[in-house]
């Protein structure tokens, strides 16, 4: 059966069609074809959120998964993110959770938080 998708690789948002032989059409660039196949076989997403931070210039620090995680794991990843408590200072790139849920993906800080006493 044919499947219709909208590509999320870039703001262009191509309308993709994948037929029963997994052949992709409607894509402007090769990334679209890869996205379509991945999306139908094992969809993944980058997750961005915040973690609690103590003694910092802000009470939360933004974080992201260093690479995409399986879509169905998003809420489990969020649960892990919600358990974390950091202590300021925090720097961009600091590993917040190593190998989250054994997905071979780290959660890393995406902002600098200064220490405030």
């Amino acid at each position: 059966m044919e499947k219709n998708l909208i590509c999320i690789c870039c703001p262009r948002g191509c309308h993709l069609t994948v037929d029963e032989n997994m052949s992709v059409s409607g894509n402007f660039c090769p990334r679209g074809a890869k996205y379509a196949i991945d999306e139908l076989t094992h969809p993944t997403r980058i997750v961005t959120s915040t973690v609690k931070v103590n003694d910092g210039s802000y009470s939360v620090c933004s974080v992201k998964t260093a690479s995409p995680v399986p879509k169905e794991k998003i809420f489990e990843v969020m649960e892990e993110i919600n358990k974390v408590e950091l202590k300021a200072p925090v720097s961009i790139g600091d590993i917040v959770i190593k190998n989250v849920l054994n997905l071979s993906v780290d959660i890393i800080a995406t902002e600098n938080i200064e220490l405030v006493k």
Partner: protein
Amino acid sequence: MRKVDLLIIGGGSAGLAAAVEAYDRGIRSIIIIERGAELGGILNQCIHNGFGLGEFKEELTGPEFAYRFAKQVQDRNIECHLLSTVTSVTPNKVVTYVNEEEGSVEVEAKAIIMAAGCYERNAGAIGVPGDRPAGVLTAGQAQLMINKFGYLCGKRIFILGSGDIGLIMARRFTLEGAKVLGVAEIMPYSNGLNRNIVQCLNDYDIPLYLSHTVSQVIGKKHVEKVEISQVDEKFRPIPGTEKVFDCDALVLSIGLIPNNTLLSDIGIKVSGTKGAEVDQYLQTSLPGVFSCGNVLHVHDLVDNVVKEARIAGESAARYIQGDLHVEEYDISCAAKDGVGYILPQHISGSDYEKVDFKLRVRKPTQNVYIEFIYNGETIKRVFKGVIIPSEMEVISLPLSLFKEKKGALEVKLTPKEVNQ
């Protein structure tokens, strides 16, 4: 009175990129006035990814993108005043700013770059019908509260407007444990990028109600219910199409407006975008005052802001160095059929070989040419299979196309004939 070469109003992506560009072209006396506690502007609260594909060839989050530019500014030792607000600009380019340490300070600048960004259209501006209780926030307010302070504005949230910030926030609320009941969009199409519809709404089964608007907010102390209705072709709610949602917050993502009052107050010409009118140097109607970024017109991508800001930075540097020539050309540019606006509004000189035209269409359109008609003659046609208002088109044309150097340019959409 202190004198500087270049004063930049705003230390967000536009102001920072403009400052770096001007510095690298030899300007050393630069000050940036930023109202926030850190450089980077609104990027600091946009913790989602998707920034910088063009600029850095990788997908960064807002704070990461902001940090890279802030670092470029700091590496050049460009003077920045944080938590500082510009209170006035005079036609003589005397800028007054105020902060805690220095008080109210007047600075005379040879050139000014306006890079103050935009603000969100709000419930008051569109007169959202019904009660006005707690729990009606703009998407930006809700974003700041959750991403920087750690507070949610509701547990059951309805969103009006399908602008990108609204879509991003729909996902963000969901990840933080709130239930997003739906997004209503008054237009028959979404105002956000397709990718955001997919990864922010569809991924989480959040319904999008096109051609719908909020017809009533209900709640005495706090939002209790939001009623939406389908709208007719004049955007009026159609009786009998009401849907009521039990919710505790209404979040608005209904558009952004250039924050250009400092310039419009001193009579600098304003365009249909509500930003200043500019020529291809991004110079306003007051020589030596330049404008770029969301205060000029609202951009879809920060990469486009940065590119535009670099032009403003270069032009300001040339102006200060006495090397900006505006005499040779005198062409007016106007948006016609199907085109919402076109930038620049004016072509004035020949220092740059190319003109970056930026435009947005009025509504989603298929199979059209963007047609540039100069003094009655088509000088360029660009075919578009699909073109939508939420995406800004950038089309670069060589100045050599404008042979007569005077006259008028019109930009319009022309349907592609089937038999062509």
